[in-house]
Each structure stands twice: as structure tokens, then as C-alpha cells.
């Protein structure tokens, strides 16, 4: 089966290598094997696989990794554009349009 990859060159993921202490916490939480530990430093291996979930940045103790985290959900984008409460569909009572309850 083909691997599922989304749009190229869009992610806001950014690594400041000087700040990285090589703890590897980001690698533990990344669901798409975007990052790699190499000689005690983290390196971005496949940038286009990043879905901006924000787990790496959240768990980075030195803020070496930053990303504008968000949910890649078209309905959420529409809802926020229409000024409906919450930035995401599932936060609206009785909506739950995104089917994200895995």
C-alpha cells in the first residue's frame, strides 16, 4: 500500500539545532517519524510528513523545536472562518463533524 503523504513544503516545523540537548523526547511523541537523533542532536528527517500536531514542541524542554500547532481539519477552518465558537468542529455541541473520534 502506498504511504499517505500530504502537501509538500507547508509545515511550520522549525528546529534550532543549537538549543537541542538531544533528549529525544520529540522522537518519542512524533507519530510520523519526522525526526531522527543523530550524534546526540535531533535532525529533521522527513519534513513533509509533519502534520503540525505540536507534540514535539510541547515536549521539548529547551524550545529547540517550534511549530504552529493545529488540527488539519477543513471543517474546523470553515467554522473558524464563519466565526463559530471554538477553533474546531468537535468543540461545538452537537456538531462533531470531523469524525475525529477514532
Amino acid at each position, binding site marked *: *500500500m*502506498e*504511504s*499517505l*503523504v*500530504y*502537501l*509538500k513544503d*507547508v*509545515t*511550520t516545523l522549525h528546529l534550532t539545532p543549537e538549543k537541542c*540537548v*538531544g*533528549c*529525544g*523526547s520529540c522522537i*518519542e*511523541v*512524533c*507519530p*510520523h*517519524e519526522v525526526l531522527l537523533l543523530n550524534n546526540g542532536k535531533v535532525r529533521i528527517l522527513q519534513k513533509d*510528513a*509533519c*502534520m*503540525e*500536531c*505540536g*507534540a*514535539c514542541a*510541547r*515536549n521539548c*524542554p*529547551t*524550545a529547540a523545536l517550534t511549530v*504552529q*500547532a*493545529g*488540527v*488539519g*481539519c*477543513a*471543517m*474546523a*477552518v470553515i467554522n473558524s472562518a464563519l466565526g463559530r465558537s471554538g477553533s*474546531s*468542529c*468537535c*468543540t461545538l*455541541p*452537537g*456538531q*462533531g*463533524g*470531523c*469524525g*475525529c*473520534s*477514532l
Partner: protein
Amino acid sequence: MEPLNPEKGSKTRPAFDVVFPTVSRPPPSKTDRLGPPEDAVPPSPGQQFVSGILDTPAGPVPIVVPQKEAADFRGTFRARWGVGRMRYAVDPGLYALRKPTEDSPVLVTANYKMSFDRLRFSLQGRSAWILVLDTKGINVWCAAGKGTFSTEELVRRVDFCAVDKVVTHRRLILPQLAGPGVAAYRVKKLCGFEVVYGPIRAEDLPEFLDAGMKVVPRMRHKTFPIAERVVLIPVELVEAFKWAVFILPALFLLGGLGGPGSFPENALIHGSFAVAAASLGILAGAVLTPTLLPWLPGRAFSMKGAVAGCLTSIPLFAYYALQGLSGARSLEILSWLVLIPAIASFLGMNFTGASTYTSLSGVKKEMRIAVPIQIVSAALGLAGWLISRFLA
């Protein structure tokens, strides 16, 4: 910025030095600052899946049924069809699976019933403590992304449930997908418990526990196989139907306008045709796109949806093309050949939210291009169809 935690990286070392604070050492727990959780009540023992009560140093803890019962199947089925999905929740708090002891692992999850069920059914005879956070009935990943499955909620819940009284170790096993909401190093600092990120799938927990809490790369990777995509189709259909219930009857009635025949005759022929064609668009966007996702061309979901829409319109087009068409009938068919992919493209685009690999930046980029095209196509298609009715 938080200062660096020097103990980061020594994941296997239990943090026993912070278990019982003495006078010489400042108490590690800063949870008082956070206060109690919003709903500071213990979980109700009256919940369907509770089979008994375990007396612990932290008070009575409900024991949960470790295997699936008819009510769980029913609940999952209903939630998959969107029935009461936003209220499908369990009470937050501490639960016991089988006969946990002070050495048993503490597994943390969300209070969406399906998340909780996955966890309690996965352990195959093992005993454990299950700590359920208040995520407002939302699953782990979405709750972490929205900030309800958070460092603060975890620390508050650990404190409120007195987890330090029921276990001697100081380790919490979190699903990896809690990562967007929980900063492991901050949890350690705030309540003395070390966070171990376990596998993504609850089904991998037995292997993970048997290997001494070691994760293999396979367990870290979020896939999106066909079975996981197909179970999402009912909710996609239900969501589409919320619009279709107004639009389909409107199309049927609009089909009655114009033409040489009477209103009911026209509605029956052309209105029904429009309803069938629009349904093909829904089928393409809400059923074919999720199912055929990896095989549909393009990376953008709106593109995949449009292609699925073209696929479903082929038989329609072929059938009428073979019959030889009048001018008005040609325009009618042509209009729907534009409308079907537009509908499918929009619904396919909405599947980004259910998928496991789309980024917000990507979705915004695709929408900037796709939404204008969808709107123009829908407007042209609809105009063409209405004109065709009056040309007839």
C-alpha cells in the same frame, strides 16, 4: 522558558527520591497551585462497566469489566453513526482493572468511552490502574490537540485521585498521541511522576509492558489503514445527510419547474435525476474518498474527492450519452458532470479532519485553491441545470 530537566533521558530510572517528601526536602508537589479538577467527584460506581469496588489507601476505586459486553458493542455502533457521540463519556477518575497492586502500571486515557474501552479490553489478563482524565468526552488525540488532555489536567487528576497512595512507583503510562497536550518534563516537575509515552495503539500495550515498557518504532507510527478509514464512513454520511436532507428535496422540487410537462411529471423525471446525481456526489465524497484514499491521485483531499466524483459520474454520463441527447438534455447532463465532482471534492476535503496525517497549514493551502473552484463549479453547474430545465 522552562529550565532544562537534568533527569530527562534517564527514562528507566524510577523517581523514588520524590515519593515521600521529608522536612529536609521541599515537597515536590506543586499541584496545590493548580487546585482540584473542575468536577472534583469520584467516578460513579453505577456505570455500566463497573463490576465491583476495590478498597485502596486512596479510598474506594471502581473495578471495571475487562471484556466487551453487548452494551459496549451497542454504544460503539451508535457513536460510529453519530448518535450521542458527543456525550459518549465515562466519569473521570481512577479505576481498577482486575486486581492491581502497588506495583501495577498506571495507564492514563481520555474519558471518551471508546478510548476507555480500547484500553480496558487490550490488556489480556493483566492488572492495571486506569486513570481517566476529563477530556469532555473527546478522544485522546483530539483532546490533546485541543488542550483538554493537558499537563494541568493530568497533574490535577493524579493529585485528586491520590495516585501516589495506590502505587509505590512514580510512573504514568500515557498513550503516545497525548503528546500534543502533555509536556512530560513538566509533569515530572509538577507532581513527581515520570511520564512514559507508550504505544499509539492500545493493542500494542501487552507487548510494550512485557518488553519492560519499551516501544519499537512500529508502535510509534500512526498509520491510516483501510479498516480505520471505513469505520469513519457512517459519521461522514451522517454529516453529509444533515445538509442533504434540505438540499435533495429542494432539487426534486426545482426539477419540476420549466419544461413542457406538468410540474409533477417534471419533478419525477428531472427532479429524481438531480437527486440521484447529487447522491452520487455524496457517495463519491463520503464513501469512495475515505475508502480509496491512498489510491486516488493527488495529495490534496479536495483533488481526491473530485476524482472520486468523476469516477461515479462515468456510468451516468455513459448511459445518457448512448441514448443520443437533445440540446436541453445535454446541458442537464453536462451540468451534473460539473456538480458531482464539486460535491465530492467538498466532502472529500472535509475528510481531512478525520485523517491522521493532514496539517493545518496544508489544509489552509488546499482550501485557498479548492474552495473557490468548488463554489464556481457549483454555481455554474446549478445555473446550467436550471437553464436546461427552461430550454426544454
